[in-house]
């Protein structure tokens, strides 16, 4: 199996490789800009206007406006950059993780308290695992 095929074989996982880094550059630099308090304020005051500063794709822009966390990851967002957007909205890593895996934050937190997502059955799309 090629390296790329091995990456793609892991379920529910989007490695931040060269393809996603190129695809997501402007989206991630938008997230990064939210490290500054004045930029957070400017974004929250006028989301559309603020996003005009970043030449992202229409799909990425929609993902931001609709808080489509998994959709943004699929369009090249990196989780550490996206966490700045989460923080701007008062959303934690656990909230985003719940949203991306299709459950509420509370259900997700309960899963973690019970030991987390099991590795068995989550290693590979193609093989017995």
């Amino acid at each position, binding site marked *: 199996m090629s390296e790329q095929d091995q990456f793609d074989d*892991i379920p529910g996982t989007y490695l931040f490789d060269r393809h996603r880094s190129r695809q997501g550059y402007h989206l991630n630099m938008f997230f990064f800009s939210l490290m500054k308090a004045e930029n957070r304020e400017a974004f929250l005051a006028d989301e559309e206007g603020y996003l005009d500063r970043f030449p992202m794709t229409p799909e990425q822009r929609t993902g931001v406006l609709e808080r489509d966390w998994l959709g943004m990851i699929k369009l090249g967002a990196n989780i550490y950059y996206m966490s700045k957007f989460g*923080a701007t909205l008062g959303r934690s890593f656990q909230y985003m993780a719940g949203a991306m895996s299709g459950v509420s934050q509370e259900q997700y937190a309960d899963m973690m308290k019970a030991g987390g997502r099991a590795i068995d059955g989550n290693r590979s799309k193609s093989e017995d695992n």
Partner: protein
Amino acid sequence: MARIVGGLATSHVPAVGAAIDLGKTQTDHWKPLFDGYEPAQQWLARVNPDVIVLVYNDHATAFSLEIIPTFGIGVAENFPPADEGWGPRPVPTVEGHSELAWHLSESLILDEFDMTMINEMPVDHGLTVPLSLTCGKDSRCEAPDHWPHRVVPISVNVVQYPPPTGKRCYDLGRAIRKAVEAYHEDLDIVVYGTGGMSHQLHGERAGLINREWDTAFLDDLTQDPERLQSIPFIEYVRETGAEGIELVMWLIMRGALGDDARELYRHYHIPASNTASGLIVLEPAA
């Protein structure tokens, strides 16, 4: 001559920093995690190093996609806690050891590890949470007015693929040991590796935990470090979650301890937010 007197590795979960900063360490949920740090705090106070060489990764804080250094070293006199999107953590400024850091830079580069030297670097939870956990006061981890040890930060890219290999990290640790031993001043140094253990923060597989794999990793830091050096990137991702790749930073710490090391203490707790939290204290075998 300076010498490496110990090694410590710990997870560096941002929610752990938030629990400390918001005074939640004594709650039923958090207390078992923080109680586990008290023996490491006592060990560190007893060893009382002059400097901690602290290996960590920046999480899209000081560095962005504009510039992605594989290995960086903080050469400044001090490093301010970063604003990661919710204001800086209320912890002291980190004091560096500029002269030692420049010595390490020169020695490492001449030893063929091409470090990026960094003078301006706000430090995020990756660096400040380990300091809070190990230099804070008891299981509350309240920060002192000044951190009791100087810190030379070593940053590692583990965000953009490809991160450095486990073997490369281990070899960097060995080169750090050599450089430390060539330093003129009589300093006691502890090396930290941080990040991990198993965790995945993104995608439908978020929340992945692998206790069995983590336990074998902790065991083999002393029993079979050769095996750990050869673990490929894809195994970290598949078995420990995409963000578990941070564990390669523990191998820099391990490499810095020399061929043989003894385990003094470990603590493993699930969960710290999304993460299996690990802690281990090692000392070089005499």
